[in-house]
Structure formats: structure tokens, C-alpha cells
């Protein structure tokens, strides 16, 4: 057992701290959760470029694709710091660095890797991706997807509708799950992954505003969109396995960033409690406040350990079966608890608009409070994740 960070990890933390101090506006705190991505896309892309030039953006990729073969442990430390400092631009449209790139490295053709990976690795605007999974009738029952891709000569012709597509309005490329064979024996047979140029004729993106009026997800319509057959990733009709891998990558990356972001929120809350008078005493003297903050600190400690444990498992060549779902559930719990405890601490100020002059802590708590239910649904609801844990972690019968 060894729970220490290496000298290298500690140096990386320090470098990112200095980077954040130099590159972010003073007093910068993101209220990312309600926005999904950074509202200022120009700034986000600017930061992507800077992260790329520091060699961090895709650090765990092999050198030939613009990475430096960093360990997953180091990648985890990096993600925690990105979350802690609220550095935007690390994900290239959420999916680019986190699962499109890693999946292309595993399953892509040489041409695909050479074409797409350098754009992501450079933090280029043309390296921004969206992921088209969910459909009106394929949410938790993801395998029920109906978007069709029919082979026609050297192309696939894609027709269908996707929803809740984050960053589609900014993305240059789409990582699309579509049905290439409708006659499969099971719903998850006959699914394929295609790369779609978002500028293709027939692609329409229309915004869906979330309940706070913020725009980060969309509907995407495909109307006779022609996609070159060479854009198929992996084998035709066998996309389900690839999707499970992509989802595992996605669920892995939640825990480190959530840890970082919410650890910084916790520290801000502790600071707030230490300096805020309420009913004649400092909030920090109130025993309920103290117990609440302690429990958050403990939950965050758990999340941190889960993140490192999973990185370690993967680095041992093992495939984390239930851990990615466990980490997703724990991340969602941490978000919910920090948001609610934080809002309780702010008291009546918890209702102030995050952008208002009156907002405490730059509106981060309101951002978290408004945002956590949406984040908890993304990439798998708690109910789905717990069913996965029961099935693969505990060997109980399939229940869905």
C-alpha cells in the first residue's frame, strides 16, 4: 500500500497552481455546473491551446499522438487540479480528450488517428467534439436507439434525432451512435459508431435551454446526412462494446474533476463560515455547520480515494467492472451534498442569481445547486449505475 503522491505528482500540482494563477482572471471561480461548459467559448479555446502547449491536454496519450504517455495516476492528479482551479478548456467539447481520443487510439484506423487526434491534442477549434448518444426514446435504455445509418455506396446515409447533446453548437465533429442493422436479435446488436462532420449538409443543431435558461445541450437532427464509410470506428454492428468502453472512460473522468471542483468549494465554504456572522456568532461556531462541513470533507476524501483506486486498477491491466459506476454515484452524491450543505450555509443568499452583485462566493454554490441534478443524470442516472453495481459488482440478476 502506498497513498503518497510522487515527487512528480507534487511538481505537476505546483505547476498547474502557477499556471492557474498566471492565466486565470483574479478571483476566478467557475459556476460551471449550471452552464455545462464555460460560457466564454473564446476564452475556453484559448485555454485549450495553452494546456496543449504545456503538454497537459492529452498527457496520457502516447507520444506519437501528441501526448507524453503520462500514467493514469498523473492524469488523475491533473484532472483534480483542473477541477480545483476551475481551468476551462480541458475537455475539447467534453468528449474530445476524455473518450473520443482514447477510443480512437484503441479502435480507430490509422487514417482516423492521424486526422483527428492531432487536432484534439493541439487544442484546436477543429478538435472540439460532441457525443450523440441519447434520443427521445433512448435514455437509460440506450440500446433502444433508432437513428439509422444505411450503407449507400461508399457512404452511410444517416437519419434520426439525438437529444441532450452537450456542446453540439460548438463541436466540429460528432461521435455518433447509430443503428446500422435493425434486424439484430437483441437491441444492442447492430449498433455502430460513426464520426460525423458537423458541417455536413443535413445536420441541424437546435438549442435546448436548461431550466435556468442556460444553453449547453441541444437537439441534433440528421436528415439524409452522408457520412463516408471510412468514418466507421471499429467494426460495423459491434459498436456496443466500444460504447461500453467509451462510457467507462467517461465515468472514470468524473470523479477526479468533481473531487477537485468540490474540494475548492468546500474550502471556500469553510472560509465563508469562518468570517460570516449569523445571529450573533460566527457560522463556524455552529455545531450543525461544523458537522456538515466535516461530513463533506470526509465524502470528498472518499471520492479522492475512489478516483485513485480506479486509476490504479486500470494501471494494473484490470478492467474496473463496477468501480466506474461506483465512482459516478459517489461523484453525484458529493455534488448534491456540497450543493445542499453549501446552500444551507449561505442561508437566504442561496437564492441570489449566480451573476448578481449580491452573490456570495461568485455564485458557485447556486451554480452547483442548480446544476447538480443535470450532472447526476448525464452519463447514467444513479438508478442505472446502482443496477450496474448490483449486477457486475455483486453478481445479482439483471434487473433492467
Amino acid at each position, binding site marked *: *500500500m*502506498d*497513498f*503518497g*503522491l510522487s515527487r512528480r505528482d507534487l511538481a505537476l500540482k505546483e505547476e498547474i497552481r502557477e499556471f492557474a494563477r498566471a492565466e486565470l482572471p483574479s478571483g476566478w471561480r467557475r459556476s460551471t455546473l449550471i452552464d455545462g461548459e464555460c460560457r466564454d467559448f473564446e476564452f475556453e479555446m484559448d485555454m485549450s491551446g495553452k494546456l496543449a502547449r504545456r503538454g497537459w491536454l492529452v498527457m496520457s496519450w502516447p507520444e506519437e499522438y501528441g501526448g507524453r504517455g503520462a500514467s493514469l*495516476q498523473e492524469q488523475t492528479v491533473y484532472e483534480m487540479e483542473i477541477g480545483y482551479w476551475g481551468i476551462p478548456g480541458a475537455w475539447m467539447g467534453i468528449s474530445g480528450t476524455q473518450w473520443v481520443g482514447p477510443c480512437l487510439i484503441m479502435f480507430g484506423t490509422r487514417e482516423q488517428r492521424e486526422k483527428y487526434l492531432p487536432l484534439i491534442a493541439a487544442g484546436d477549434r477543429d478538435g472540439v467534439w460532441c457525443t450523440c448518444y441519447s434520443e427521445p426514446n433512448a435514455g437509460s435504455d440506450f440500446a433502444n436507439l433508432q437513428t439509422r445509418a444505411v450503407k449507400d455506396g461508399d457512404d452511410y446515409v444517416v437519419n434520426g434525432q439525438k437529444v441532450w447533446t452537450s456542446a453540439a453548437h460548438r463541436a466540429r465533429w460528432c461521435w455518433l451512435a447509430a443503428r446500422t442493422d435493425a434486424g439484430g436479435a437483441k437491441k444492442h446488436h447492430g449498433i455502430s459508431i460513426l464520426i460525423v462532420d458537423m458541417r455536413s449538409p443535413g445536420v441541424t443543431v437546435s438549442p435546448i435551454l436548461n431550466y435556468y435558461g442556460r444553453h449547453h445541450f441541444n437537439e441534433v437532427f440528421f436528415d439524409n446526412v452522408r457520412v463516408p464509410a471510412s468514418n466507421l470506428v471499429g467494426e460495423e454492428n459491434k459498436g456496443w462494446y466500444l460504447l461500453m468502453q467509451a462510457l467507462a472512460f467517461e465515468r472514470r473522468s468524473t470523479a477526479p474533476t468533481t473531487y477537485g471542483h468540490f474540494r475548492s468549494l*468546500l*474550502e471556500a465554504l*469553510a*472560509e465563508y*463560515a*469562518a468570517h460570516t456572522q449569523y445571529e450573533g456568532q460566527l457560522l*463556524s461556531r455552529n455545531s450543525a455547520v*461544523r*458537522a456538515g*462541513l*466535516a*461530513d463533506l*470533507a*470526509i465524502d470528498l*476524501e*472518499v471520492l479522492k*480515494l*475512489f478516483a*485513485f*483506486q480506479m*486509476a*490504479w*486498477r486500470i494501471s*494494473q491491466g484490470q478492467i474496473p467492472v*463496477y468501480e466506474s459506476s*461506483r465512482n459516478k*454515484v*459517489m461523484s453525484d452524491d458529493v455534488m448534491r451534498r456540497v450543493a445542499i450543505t453549501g446552500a444551507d450555509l449561505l442561508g437566504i443568499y442561496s437564492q441570489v442569481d449566480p451573476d448578481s452583485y449580491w452573490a456570495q462566493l461568485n455564485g458557485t454554490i447556486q451554480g452547483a445547486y442548480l446544476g447538480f441534478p443535470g450532472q447526476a443524470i448525464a452519463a447514467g442516472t444513479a*438508478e442505472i*449505475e*446502482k*443496477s450496474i*453495481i*448490483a*449486477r457486475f*459488482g*455483486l*453478481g*445479482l*440478476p*439483471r*434487473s*433492467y
Partner: protein
Amino acid sequence: MDFSFTEEQDMLRSLAREFLTNECPSSSVREADEYEEGYDPRLWRRMAELGWMGLVLPEEYGGMNAGFMDLVVLMEEMGRSMVPGPFFSTVALCALPILEYGRSEQKAEFLPEIARGEEIWTMALAESSGGWRASEVCLHAELRDTHYVLQGHKLFVTDAHVADHLLVAGRAADGEEPEHGITLLLVDAGTPGMEIEPIRTIGGDRQFRVSFRGVTIPQDRVLGMAGNGWDIIDFILQRAAVLKSAEISGACQAVLDMTCAYAKERIQFDRPIGSFQAIQHKLADMMIDVDAVRYLLYQAAWGINVGSPASLQISAAKARANEAYQRICIEAVTTHGAIGYTRDHDIGLYYRRVKAAQFAAGHTDLHREVVVGELGL
């Protein structure tokens, strides 16, 4: 980071598991109550033969010179099997501080007896409030010439009926801070003026009030420095909190295993209840809790093992273990339904032990305070 155990630790775990499965099945846990001691002394002997009491003691005292992490592995297994007896009192509460703070003649006098399983120890710290805070230590320990005279009561002292010696926290003088002026004394059981009276508990363990009425203890029986006893208690609290968390971790895993097995075999509505999501999601929550306790525990134990104990990590582990143990046991009993509420089922044995485990080495609120202190509050 490295989340793996050494080969020796894996071996220790499997040996302990095998031994305890055979020698300490739940039936014998139930029967333990029938012994005057509250445990089977033959099992204690056999554990001593395996070298468990001296596991982390140096060879010169008859120990096996293993590390703290090895002791954690062993205690997880003991927790899994709910091993009755004074192991925790003797090893976690007393042997470790004697090894760390004892003078060489004290170590030579006491540690080999502990390692051989010949002598049993316990610590007398808590008083009427039951708290592990310095302010709660009121027992008078007044120095008169060459002797301390002890006057007062200690409560919730585990295994006092079988202890050969007690580590007693007394207050020699009122300091400015409650932590000042506390002295730890190595007291022989049965010293005139001592009296024990049982406090019956729901956990099946043995706890006592120990009264001191003018008990005189020679000055050379001070552990560490007179008046600086709180430093030692802090040392004990940290290690004991981790070791109690290890017991809890092992117990939680056992309860999860048992409940999961039951959910697979219990048929209602023509299918195993484990196929219902309402049950599955409870079990998934339990599994997450078990993992949380386990990794917090290992992290805290690692800190102690490498000589840099971190109070945040230790207190996070114990606070979370306390809460998770209770939650897991309650979910386990209710998942079992009425059978889980019966005397004959093992689940209840674990549930009944929750409270004792929570209050040993600091209850949740105490550890939350440590954690919040680490946040600068």
C-alpha cells in the same frame, strides 16, 4: 499510489480467515457469553500461539516485528468473525503506547507477557460523560511523596474483569488547558481500593465501572512524562481509531456478503429478491459504503505505517466507519426481513455490536471535530 497488499499480508489474511472460520464460527461467538470471561480462553491461547498479540511488537519482546498495516489486516479478519475477547483492549489500547512511551524496564516487564498472551490489559479513560476529550478526565491522581493516590471513577472500561493491568488516565493538577496535567499510570488490577462493577451492554462485550478509592501507585509506574499524558492518549486514540475502523471494515464486508447471498436465494413473487431494484440499490449503496470505509482505513493505516499519521485521514476513517457500520447493519437486517430480527441469525450479532464499535476510540462527532479542525475551523 499502490492499493495492493504485500504477499505476506495476503498470507496473513488468508491464514487468519481460515483459522477464525474454524475456531471462531458465529456459534462460538454466541456461546462466548456462557464463559465467565465473556470469551473462550482456549481461543485466546491459540491466538497467542499464532503470535497475534505480539504481531507488531519487536522480537526482543517476543513479538513478530510486523508493521501496523499487518495488524490492520488481522483486525479486519477479527472484525469479520466478531472475535470475542480482550484483544483490542490489550494490543490497541495498551501494548502500542507501552512500546512507544514505556521506559526500557517497563517494556521488558510488560511486553513479553502481552506477546505470550499471558497478561491482559485495558485502558481506563472515559468517565461519566463517556467522552474521549481531555476535559472529561477528572479522576484525581495526586502525587504524595513517591506515590500517586487515585480517587474517582472510570466508566465503560472494557474487559476490566480479566485485566491484569490497567492504563489509567488521571489528573495530577489543573492546567490552563484541559490537556495539561494528565498523567497515565500503569496500574495492577486488584490494587487495594479498586473495585469493578459491570455495566451491561447490548453488544455482548464486557464493560465496567472501575472505582478508585485512595489507590496508591508508585511513581515509577507513570507511563511517559507525568502531566503529559494527553500526548499519549492522542497517540492511542489515533491508532485505536484506525484499528477499530479495521474491525468495522471486516464486519461490514461480512454483513454485505451475507445479505447479498440471502438476496440471491430468498424467493418471493417467484424470483430471488435480489432481482428487484429496490433491493439491488440498497445493496449497491452498502457496497459503496464498504469500499469507502476500506480505502479510508487503508489510507489512514498507511500514514501510521510510514510514520506520518495524518489526523484528517484517521478521523475521516473512524467517523465514516461508525456511520457506515450502523447504516449497513440496519439495511442488512431489513433486507433479511423477519429472519434478520431473530436471535438465531448472525446479522443481529453484528447490529448489536455497532454501538460499542462507534464509541470505542472516539465517536463520530469527536472525529468530525478533528476533520473540521483540519479545514482551519
